[in-house]
Structure formats: structure tokens, C-alpha cells
């Protein structure tokens, strides 16, 4: 197992490098003139300005040099200052956010993380619970209902679901609202009396002992959470169910029954435990699915996270923000997949001990 983990850890930098290649390659689709616009606050107007930027950042140099500059930065021979370089944290300037991309990512990530974390509750609890129930009642009504839910949930586009929720719960019933906080609290949380420890509103509200803000933040998140969760919930339900059905057929279940174990013990100790091991493998896919959903969901519900930023940047063709977002995702998911892979190896004794 340790060699597997070491191998996996050694592959990680290779993949990481590949990701930077890929992003750099996407950037190269644009010509030097277009790329020159990516690095600075104001869109350069005159040819002189453009040429100055191309020179300063070496945008007309050979590709491998450009990659190197993009990676570690380039010393400007005239001013002798280092410019660019993603390793230095210089991901460029976001026109959408009117701030450096890296700062924008930092500022908006907590909101998205908060949304994703809350969504995990219905996904995991609902998906696994329904999957197990469905499998244990194979071909009975609850199984049929689960299957219908899984198929429908898997087929409905996120943005359609989001808009339908808005139609019903906001426009018609007025129960939940889009955005992140009501106006009355939006200001309050920026005032000195309220400390933003984590920048995650629900967590900060609790840490500041403000139940009213907590409930308000949660209220704003109900619709996005449902929108985000349904698809992944359906996926997890499907995987859990089939994994359970698979394990229920195994010989060792017959052995457990032949020992006279209570049905509850057979299910809990023998079937469920084994069935949930493969479920871990889709944790990565679930996270990726959440990130996909976040882009659309945040846009619909006007929720100020990374996804909304990406969608805005995409519409305004703010390429540098998009590339920054891509890089952020690349790094995030290399890490996430690594953890999932290692976790899988660790929880399965067949692999752990061989």
C-alpha cells in the first residue's frame, strides 16, 4: 500500500505540470496582441502601449520561454522588476472583479466552499440512506420511487431546476430568497462588531453567536443547496443501491445468515460496510459535479462565489480570470482525487494489507 501511495504522490507533480501545460496551451490559442490585454488593469489602446506590454512580459518570445515566464515570472530588463509568474501568485488582473485574480479567488472561495459543504449533507445522508433502503427493498415501492428520483434527478439540468425553484419558492411563495444575506444583515457583518473568522457566513454567524444571521444565511442557501444537491444525490443513490445489491448476492452474506446472525447485523455489519467501500470512489466525481453545478447555481441565485465570478468572466470574455479559475480547479481536484485514491486504499483491508 505504501508503495502505491508513494507512486500516487510522485505522479501528482507530473499531473500538476500537465495541468499547467494545458492551461498555458489554451492561452496560446490567443495571439500576443490579445494576450497583452490579459496582464494589465486597463485595456491597452495604442499600438505603443501594446508593444510595450508584449516586450515587458516577453509575449513574442519562443513558446518554451513564455511558459517559463508565465510560470515563474520575468525580470523586466528596463525596470528590473519581476513581472508575472503564477508561482509568485501573479495570475493576472481580473477585469470582471477589478482586482488581481489571486485575491479574487481568495475572497470568493469561502462562499463557494460553504455552499458545497452544506450541500454534502443532503447528498451523503439522502443518497446513501435512500440507496440502502432501495436495495434492501429491491423492486418494492421505495425502490421504484428511488429509481424514478435517480433518473429524473440525473436528467434535469441544473439551471432549469434552479429557475423552477425560483419560480415556486421565491416568485410565488416567497419562502426563500436569492443572494447571500438580507440587506439588513449585509452591512452588519462588515461592521467591527462582527468578526469574519472563516468568511463562511453560517459559521461566522455561529461564532459571533448571531442566530438571526445564521438563519438568514441558511435561508438564502436553501435553494442553491437543493439545486446543487439533487444531481449528486441521484448519482450517489444509484451507486449505493447497485453496490448494495451486488454485495447482497455475495457468498459471505450467505455465510453470515448461516451463522444465525440477526438480519440487522447481517445488513449493518456485513453488507453495508462492504457496499460503502466502492462508494468512496465516486467522492471525487461528486466534488467535480458540485463544482460544475456551482457555476450555474451561483449565477442563478446571485450568490457571490467562485462560480458566479467564472460565469461573469466567461460572458465578458475575461480570459485571464477564466484561466485563473481553471488553474485553481486543477490544483483543487488534483488534491481531491489524491485524497480519494488514498482513502480508498486505506479503508479496504484487501488492498491495505497486500
Amino acid at each position: 500500500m505504501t508503495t502505491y501511495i508513494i507512486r500516487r504522490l510522485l505522479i501528482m507533480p507530473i499531473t500538476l505540470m500537465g495541468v499547467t501545460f494545458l492551461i498555458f496551451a489554451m492561452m496560446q490559442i490567443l495571439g500576443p496582441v490579445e494576450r497583452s490585454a490579459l496582464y494589465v488593469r486597463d485595456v491597452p489602446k495604442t499600438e505603443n502601449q501594446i508593444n510595450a506590454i508584449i516586450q515587458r512580459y516577453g509575449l513574442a518570445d519562443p513558446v518554451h520561454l513564455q511558459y517559463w515566464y508565465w510560470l515563474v515570472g520575468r525580470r523586466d530588463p528596463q525596470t528590473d522588476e519581476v513581472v508575472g509568474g503564477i508561482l509568485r501568485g501573479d495570475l493576472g488582473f481580473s477585469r470582471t472583479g477589478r482586482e488581481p485574480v489571486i485575491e479574487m479567488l481568495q475572497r470568493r472561495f469561502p462562499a463557494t466552499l460553504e455552499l458545497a459543504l452544506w450541500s454534502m449533507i443532503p447528498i451523503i445522508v439522502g443518497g446513501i440512506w435512500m440507496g440502502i433502503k432501495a436495495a434492501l427493498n429491491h423492486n418494492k415501492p421505495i425502490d421504484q420511487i428511488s429509481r424514478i428520483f435517480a433518473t429524473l434527478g440525473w436528467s434535469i439540468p441544473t439551471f432549469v431546476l434552479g429557475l423552477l425553484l425560483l419560480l415556486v419558492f421565491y416568485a410565488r411563495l416567497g419562502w426563500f430568497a436569492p443572494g447571500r444575506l438580507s440587506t439588513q444583515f449585509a452591512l452588519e457583518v462588515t461592521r467591527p462588531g462582527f468578526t469574519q473568522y472563516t468568511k463562511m457566513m453560517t459559521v461566522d454567524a455561529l461564532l459571533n453567536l448571531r442566530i438571526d444571521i445564521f438563519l438568514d444565511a441558511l435561508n438564502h442557501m436553501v435553494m442553491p443547496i437543493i439545486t446543487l444537491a439533487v444531481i449528486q444525490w441521484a448519482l450517489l443513490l444509484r451507486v449505493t443501491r447497485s453496490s448494495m445489491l451486488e454485495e447482497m448476492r455475495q457468498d459471505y452474506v450467505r455465510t453470515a445468515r448461516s451463522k444465525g446472525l440477526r438480519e440487522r447485523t447481517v445488513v449493518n455489519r456485513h453488507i453495508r460496510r462492504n457496499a460503502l467501500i466502492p462508494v468512496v470512489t465516486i467522492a471525487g466525481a461528486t466534488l467535480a459535479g458540485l463544482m460544475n453545478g456551482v457555476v450555474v447555481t451561483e449565477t442563478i441565485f446571485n450568490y457571490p462565489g467562485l462560480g458566479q465570478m467564472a460565469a461573469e468572466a466567461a460572458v465578458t470574455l475575461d480570459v485571464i480570470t477564466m484561466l485563473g479559475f481553471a488553474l485553481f480547479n486543477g490544483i483543487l481536484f488534483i488534491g481531491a482525487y489524491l485524497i480519494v485514491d488514498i482513502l480508498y486504499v486505506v479503508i479496504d483491508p484487501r488492498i491495505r494489507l497486500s
Partner: protein
Amino acid sequence: MTINTSEAVTPAGRPAGIPLDEGFLRPPSRLEKALGPEWARLIRGIFTNPLSVIGLIIVTGFIVVGLLAPVLAPPPKPGANPYQIPRDGFLPEPKPPGTPWVKNAPYYVPAWYSLTGNEEWVHLLGTTGGQYDIWYALIWGTRTALLAGTAVVVASATIGILVGSVAGYFGGLVDEMLMRILEIFVVFPSLVAVLVLSSILVPIFGRSLWPAMIALIVFGWMGYARLLRGDILSNKQRDYVMAARASGAKDTHIILKHVLPNAMFPTLVFLSLDMGSIVLSFAALSFLGVGVEPGYADWGQIVSFARNYIVSLDTFWYVIVFPAIALLLYGLGWNLLGDAMRDILDPKLRGKIG
């Protein structure tokens, strides 16, 4: 050369003339004779399972609608670009279903139209803001979905099958390298990657179907490659491949006759599921605003109009509900079909792909 294996014993009382080892072989059905056992099983399965019949009806329905688009929604002038949705004025406010059509109505009233109870063209499903006719957009959007979806699926399947076959067949270093490259592509959540790439491609191709299509292909082949590679690897180990080699078969013969045909059905399942999900991603991109120019007949774009009326969605429900039904049905149709095929072909595959 004759060898009597039936010995001299003929049990008394049994009707004479039946060769001993005929056993209880059932005669094959006509379907089976014509198509072989797997296709026969697949087709019989699809037509006997109520869910897949529903899926089949939905998908066929969309194909019929796509084919009949010129009759269902004729363009305003003969010879006009049918993919341009006709506008009945420029008012920002949507109009409800049944509103009379004033400007740019289809140039003739087809025979079927009397079924709707109208003599002249009305906005059957209402208009969006900017007075784009929803009925027209959905009918021609079906064509867009089918054409763009098929093109993307065919292209990414071709790339994936090629990469997967090469990796699976050659194995070793080639396999290792291709898989490392593949891993780089799968690191990004699919919609995120597609969004980034298409926003970079828009300046080059302009607003059209191309940026989204290319991006969906570039980040859409990996599933096929993985599937095919795995299938080839497992098929290579099968005894019947060993048997063919023992008979002196060439590698090309083995691949073409034994390995690829057996990998075909899982690919088919994946293809069906992909047909649905590609169009949903495509619509999501349009919805976010990275896609075709305004007015192009495309489902996602119609839905994106709804974003302007979030507060009054209950009044303008038709802006979201009708496109939502189209999108949901389309995804559902392909998913039901794909799921049914998966269950028929290999019950063990349940929940493993897609």
C-alpha cells in the same frame, strides 16, 4: 471419417431418429437469427422494458420534431435562415401563450395548425423578452440539439475510441503516457473546463455553435477512452482471444473480430447517456451566455432569457416552463434508453458508468 459417439445404446421407448446430444436446445427466434444473440437480446429488452420504451418514444419524438421542423414552425420568409428565431417586435416584456403574432409570423399556416384552434399564427407558447417566439425556438432548437449533440458525441467518441484502443492494445509505455495525458484532462470538472475553453474560443470563432462544440469535444473524449481501454485490457485476457491466437490469428484479426466487437456494447450505452448529457451541458453554456449569438434557435438561450425576470417568474412562467420540459424530456429520453441498455447488457454494470 465418422465416429459413433452415441454408442450402441438406444434407450427403449424414446422416439428414434433424434441425435443424442440435441438436448433441449430451443429454436432461435427470427430476431436472433437475423441479428445475433446480443443484438436480439438488446432489442427485445428495449422493446419489452416499459422505461426504455418511454425513452425510445421520447427520443424518436425529438427526432421526428427535428425532421418536421419546417412544417411545425415555418420561418417568416421562404428561404430565410430558419435558425434565426423570428421576433415579434422588441418589447422587453414577455407575452403569454396565445398572444396574436403581429410581425415576422411564419410565412404560411400549415394544415396541422387548425388543431390548435387558431386560424392565424399566434405565439403558441408565448414569447420571451425581446419577443422571440418560444414555440419556434423550441422546434428549431430540437434540430440544433440533435445536430450539435450528435456531432460532438461522434467526434469525442471517435477520439476516445482511438486513444483507448491504442492505449489498451499497445499497453506498456504508450498506455502509461496516454493515461497520464488523459488524467490531466479529467482533473477539471467538465463544465468548468468547457466553460473556460469556449470563452477563450469565442474571440476566435465569434458567437456561434463552434466554441462550445469544440470545447465539449476537447473535454469529452476521456470517458470513451477509459471505457475502451478497460474493455480491451480485459478482453485481451479472455480465453477466446487465446484460442484465436492459438489458431494463428494475426493481431489485427483478433482486435477487429474479437476485441472491438465485444467492447462495442458498453460504448453504445455510454454513447446514449452522452447524447443526453452533452446537450444539457451545451444548454448550460448557452444559458451562461457563452454560446450562440442572441436569437439563435437554441434551448439554453431561451432559458437564459428567464434570468431577467427572476422576481416575476410566476407571471412569466412560460419563459422557463416550456424550455424546461423540452430539456428535461430530452435528457430523460436518452438516459432511460442508456440505463435500459446497460441493465440488459450487463446487470453488473449498473451504476458503474455514466
